[in-house]
């Protein structure tokens, strides 16, 4: 197992947001985490990335217990999150943002290669490489956020709501790129409200409801599950 989250409890003050959930991601998989607003998807991501500590539970990544590590230490081990709302640095240029993804790396030649690869994946970013990132469109910012995460050569890429606030056509495009990245060998854990897209692209998926995992299975099986279809896909 590349990533194991065991009995994770996460609290905000007196409110418990995650009531002891467990998730596993194997190497090479694309795993989706779906659920409605407020189900705890983003809390799960914050816990996994280390932005917020767990009240109890355990996180094992690549055979190492990382529960007590800070976010920057987990990132150095290859556990990389593209946060909800993209989290680009608005005052930096596109290139500077991408360079931030390689902040912990020192191999300049390989970084330059990865920069070219990111521009290959997202030609739009190359056109705008000197533009200040705050002036990009939502879709471009999402591309930038994904490109930046790839610059760190993640072992596990975690994406929090990559479709948020984007037009349907752009969403298609973003998910195509995510599939492409997966095919190139990066393991992916994606959190989505757009259940249809996420389930059709994922090997496996978990369904989160008010802080509990209520269902798990292969993406295809969940797509066919009547209760899932009703609750998340808007099909009766």
């Amino acid at each position, binding site marked *: 197992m590349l990533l194991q989250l065991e009995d994770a409890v996460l609290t905000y003050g007196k409110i418990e947001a995650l009531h002891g959930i467990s998730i596993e991601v194997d190497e090479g998989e694309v795993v989706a985490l779906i659920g409605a607003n407020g189900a705890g998807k983003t809390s799960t991501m914050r816990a996994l990335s280390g932005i917020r500590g767990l009240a109890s539970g355990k996180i094992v990544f690549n055979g190492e217990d990382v529960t007590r590590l800070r976010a*920057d230490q987990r990132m150095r081990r290859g556990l990389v999150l593209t*946060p909800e709302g993209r*989290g680009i*640095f*608005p005052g930096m240029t596109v290139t500077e943002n991408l*360079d*931030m993804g390689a*902040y*912990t790396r020192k191999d300049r030649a390989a970084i330059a290669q990865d920069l070219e690869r990111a521009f290959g994946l997202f030609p739009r970013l190359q056109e705008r490489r000197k533009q200040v990132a705050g002036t990009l469109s939502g879709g471009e910012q999402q591309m930038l956020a994904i490109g930046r995460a790839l610059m760190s050569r993640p072992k596990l890429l975690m994406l929090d709501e990559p479709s948020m606030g984007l037009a349907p056509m752009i969403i298609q495009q973003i998910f195509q790129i995510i599939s492409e990245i997966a095919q190139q060998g990066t393991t992916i854990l994606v959190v989505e409200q757009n259940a249809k897209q996420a389930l059709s692209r994922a090997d496996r998926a978990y369904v989160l409801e008010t802080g509990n995992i209520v269902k798990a299975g292969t993406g295809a099986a969940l797509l066919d599950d009547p209760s899932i279809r009703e609750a998340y896909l808007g099909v009766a």
Partner: protein
Amino acid sequence: MDFDSLINGLGGHTLDGLFRGSVYALVALGYTMVYGVMRLINFAHSEVFMVGTWTVLGVYTVLGAGEGSGTMMVIAATALALVCAMAASATVALGVERIAYRPLRKKNAPPLIFLITAIGCSLALMETFGYVLKVFFGEPFGRAPVNIPSPLRTSALIEIGDFRLTNVHVLVIVGAIVMMFALDTFVNKSRIGRGVRAVAQDPDTASLMGVNQDRVIMMVFVLGGAMAGVAALLYTVQYDITSWSAGFLMGIKAFTAAVLGGIGNLRGALVGGLILGIVEVYFSTLFDSSWQNVWAFIVLVLVLMFRPTGLLGESLGKARA
């Protein structure tokens, strides 16, 4: 209102304003940088500056440098005073961060607690020089202001009528501007400088990119402290004096300069400092010079009323929009 003397001596007054303003700007950098990454007004920064002025006095005393010193001694004493003041101020700034602020961060303390702690650190440092050190070492510590006889002799380089450009003017203004450009380049070009900007724009995402926030914050305190040390040397060259409370007015003026330029914005600190210096000198000439310390407060109130983001805006704060 004495327009004649302002207009007649405009060149000299402007020079005088830049002269004062460059020191304000250097101290303002410390406020602005710490605010940029922590959203905290570090009230202890004025005392970081104050410690620098005492360090200069210490170096001169140890070397025996004073008004009659020879050229070599002047250069050696000034250079050593600069290095020691930078080191001492940076150390104090870092000490405040490690002892006072970091434990609060680990406990997720609310902003008000940081602010009160900052004021507490400021008082503790002032009383150290105003009282504690006097108990142990006697003079020159204590409540009385102390002379710092600068070994640097003032000599005019250019003299046209009332306009007098001296070597001290050049040293202070050029020194301050060079330090500020060095800092600006460092923050914009170096790797850790990129980390600083990243934390300023979005601390959570910065840590997701592998930036160690504690290290960035330490760096900011060290850099801000070192700049306050430079300011301390230049201040003693200007005024030949310090005291346990020397940081108080300087702190308010530098803070005003930072707010005027746009707090969080490095270049804003430079612009704000220079403008504040000039405003102070112009208005002191127009009105009574005993009012000179009032203008900074008036500027601060006006900026906060009409343009709270400052002249250049909170450039590092765009992320919070």
